[in-house]
């Protein structure tokens, strides 16, 4: 089922990318997708569900907002005459435990203001995050836990 | 416009030759990479320059409306880029293998084919 979904997605990507939604092109895109999925057949296994589209969309909105903010804050920081930075690395205790979710979270964190995922602990319990402003670690942790992590859990559980 | 690019080509050549004259394989390899670019730019310039207009015929037309950049040097350079990349890769791995066996990238120390103490030719009959 997941595989089929993925495949359809790839097919649509193909059609979009080529700008040609004719049947033949769709068929070709489907075959192409089949092939590329076949290439990664060992790693495939999970995927998303149609039902979660909305929640995913909400996550996306959050992300775009955070991204814009992030960029803006970095801009402000960089352009300020005296850069007051208190950088550091803190450990974020993970609630999500699937590979896909951890990855998504880590990426989103990296894209948010002043934070950067450095590593996941070996036991997958913690995500180490570098922050430009590390003066309030509990606050940082809470922001993430209530923001991206919750949205992810909503969208994919 | 060609003049600037010609000067740039000259600089590319000078730098690449300087790198090629090093004793150290890695530097020489960098020289090879730069030399490739130097040559490509040379061919590009020699085929004369046109700003911005790529040699692509707009959809629906039989021939381009405006004069386009000269396509032939581009095709030649494309071939040359690929070839020089292949050579670069081969030489790089060659250097790597040499390092593995000979433990240096100093060509002066890689004297196996023409050893320093090569035996004198035999005398007598």
């Amino acid at each position: 089922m997941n595989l089929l979904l993925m495949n359809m997605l790839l097919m649509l990507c193909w059609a979009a990318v080529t700008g040609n939604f004719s049947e033949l092109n769709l068929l070709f895109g489907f075959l192409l997708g089949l092939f590329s999925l076949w290439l990664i057949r060992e790693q495939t296994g999970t995927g998303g569900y149609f039902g979660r589209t909305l929640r995913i969309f909400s996550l996306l909105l959050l992300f775009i907002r955070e991204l814009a903010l992030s960029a803006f804050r970095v801009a402000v920081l960089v352009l300020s005459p005296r850069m007051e930075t208190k950088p550091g690395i803190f450990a974020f205790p993970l609630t999500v435990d699937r590979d896909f979710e951890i990855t998504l979270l880590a990426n989103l964190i990296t894209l948010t203001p002043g934070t950067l995922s450095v590593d996941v602990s070996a036991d997958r319990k913690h995500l180490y995050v570098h922050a430009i402003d590390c003066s309030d670690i509990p606050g940082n942790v809470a922001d993430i836990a209530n923001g991206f992590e919750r949205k992810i859990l909503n969208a994919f559980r | 416009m060609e003049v600037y690019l010609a000067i740039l080509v000259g600089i590319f050549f000078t730098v690449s030759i300087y790198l090629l004259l090093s004793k150290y394989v890695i530097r020489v390899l960098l020289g090879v990479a730069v030399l490739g670019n130097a040559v490509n730019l040379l061919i590009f310039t020699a085929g004369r320059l046109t700003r911005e207009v790529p040699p692509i015929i707009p959809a629906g037309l039989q021939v381009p409306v405006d004069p386009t950049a000269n396509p032939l040097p581009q095709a030649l350079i494309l071939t040359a880029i690929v070839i020089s990349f292949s050579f670069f890769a081969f030489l790089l791995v060659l250097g790597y293998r040499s390092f593995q066996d000979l433990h240096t990238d100093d060509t002066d120390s890689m004297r196996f084919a023409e050893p320093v103490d090569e035996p004198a030719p035999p005398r007598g009959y």
Partner: protein
Amino acid sequence: MSAFHFLDFAISIALVMLTLSFFLTCYRVVVGPTLPDRIMALDMLVGVVIGFIAVIGVKTGYHLYVDIALALGLVGFLATVAFARFVLERGVGDHERALLEDREGKR
């Protein structure tokens, strides 16, 4: 000022900023001081080039440049990955360590 004049103007401004970005990024590649600094700067350079290509695409009307930008993004990523891997395998170079210690010492 018509919309298209504005666009031309915007493009010129953007090109100025991008050109400046080139030099700044280039500066970081050259001065380092650490290898990850240089790698990151190179990665950033790829980003700037992508932007530059996009702007040139807008300027000239050759929208097909988008694919070049896209492909550059793909391989640029690969380069950074390979370098990251290199850093991981090789560790901090002796020369770099000495350099870093010098800097720390001066503070």
